[in-house]
């Protein structure tokens, strides 16, 4: 247990330092969300409709930023080999790193989202729904991203391939996450948040095992 916590703490500390990914992801998130009204036009009605999707897509893209360095950085300087020799299993390593990624990327994004929703003219009644949908959905982004990061571990420029692998797998999260907010706006109850929760639960529970399998054969040679 302490090995898990130690790895988690190390990764969180690395990410929150200057040059780490936490602030970068937040800045990217804000930049993307602010860019869209310039393209779409600032008509309030239109923005209110697309606000949820913009925030969600920006959240997915911002989370992708830190993903290709998730295992790559440790792989390159040999730390991953040392971690493999530690008492922590590969599943534990994967779970710790994915959790650290969520704590330093997904969670701050979620907390910043009401501010962006304000900029994008989302009606106030949907703020809680947006918060909850991001809170429930961002672990899935980190989990599936972690799997893809482990699969693309030894590729040079693997960071370019990562979005191609991750985005199709994250489509249900975006559909149900933004869909939950739209349902709240339209006063419909379509259970989207529950589908999102189920998707997240499955992703979070299975990803350490799949990630560990990918890490094992990448380190084996």
């Amino acid at each position, binding site marked *: 247990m302490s090995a898990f916590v130690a790895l988690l703490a190390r990764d969180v500390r690395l990410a929150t330092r200057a040059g780490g990914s936490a602030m970068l992801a937040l800045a990217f998130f804000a930049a993307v969300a602010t860019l869209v009204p310039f393209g779409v036009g600032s008509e309030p009605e239109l923005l209110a409709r697309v606000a949820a999707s913009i925030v969600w897509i920006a959240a997915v893209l911002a989370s992708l930023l830190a993903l290709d360095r998730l295992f790559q950085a440790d792989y390159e300087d040999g730390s991953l080999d040392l971690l493999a020799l530690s008492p922590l299993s590969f599943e534990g390593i994967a779970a710790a790193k994915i959790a650290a990624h969520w704590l330093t990327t997904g969670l701050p994004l979620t907390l910043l989202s009401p501010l962006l929703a304000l900029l994008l003219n989302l009606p106030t009644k949907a703020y809680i729904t947006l918060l909850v949908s991001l809170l429930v959905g961002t672990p899935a982004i980190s989990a599936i991203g972690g799997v893809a990061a482990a699969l693309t571990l030894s590729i040079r420029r693997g960071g370019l391939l990562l979005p191609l692998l991750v985005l*199709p797998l994250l489509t249900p999260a975006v559909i149900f996450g933004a869909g939950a907010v739209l349902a709240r706006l339209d006063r419909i109850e379509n259970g989207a948040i529950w589908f999102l929760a189920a998707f997240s639960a499955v992703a979070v529970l299975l990803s350490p095992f*799949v990630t560990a399998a990918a890490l094992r*054969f990448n380190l084996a040679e």
Partner: protein
Amino acid sequence: MLAYANPKRFMELSGRVLPWLAGATAFLFAVGLYLSFAAPPDYQQGDTVRIMFVHVPAAWVAMMAYGFLALASLISLVNRHPLADVAAKQAAPLGAMFTALALVTGSLWGRPMWGAYWVWDGRLTSFLLLLFLYLGYIALRNAVESETRAAKAAAILALIGVVNLPIIEFSVQWWTTLHQGESIFRAGGPAIAAVFLWPLFAMAAAYTMLFFTLVIVRIRTDILERRARALTMGHAA
């Protein structure tokens, strides 16, 4: 199946089987195309109903190809069957082509039928996702330098994406959609007239034979390429 693990045995067996497969493909296409043109125009859709004979078999084979890919990936990971990852690698581009074909022909059919080239309903969206899964598989397989690592990574990716197949299959039941619902494999028998079913099944059989012919040709080519490379390396040494 372990008997075919030896590439030499596979080459012998496939070499004998291949002419028959190719012949069957040609024959089935001849029959299927004849029946497709001989079928009468539909009372509602007119002659555009014939797009069904090109679109539906392509979609069926695209999904079957992904099943083939996933099965080969599973065997490659679990049994370490040496030809399984070759089969997976060679099936992926074929599956991607059939998916693209289904999407394009479906789009062309949608314009006269629904008035739209594309709608974001469950069936079309999940089928587009299938194309992205294929492309991601091909990209990952080609990006990793070590062939064995590439095979394993791509195998895991293929197995993750298998969850899309039932989604495609049941999307017309789960969500309201413009796309045709279950019309053939349903309780109560097919809802399509026999005069359209025969061309459809003939073309489906032809497409399936085409897929297997092509995938066997590609596996044989891969084995021959490896031999050529080994010979070149041996010669250089």
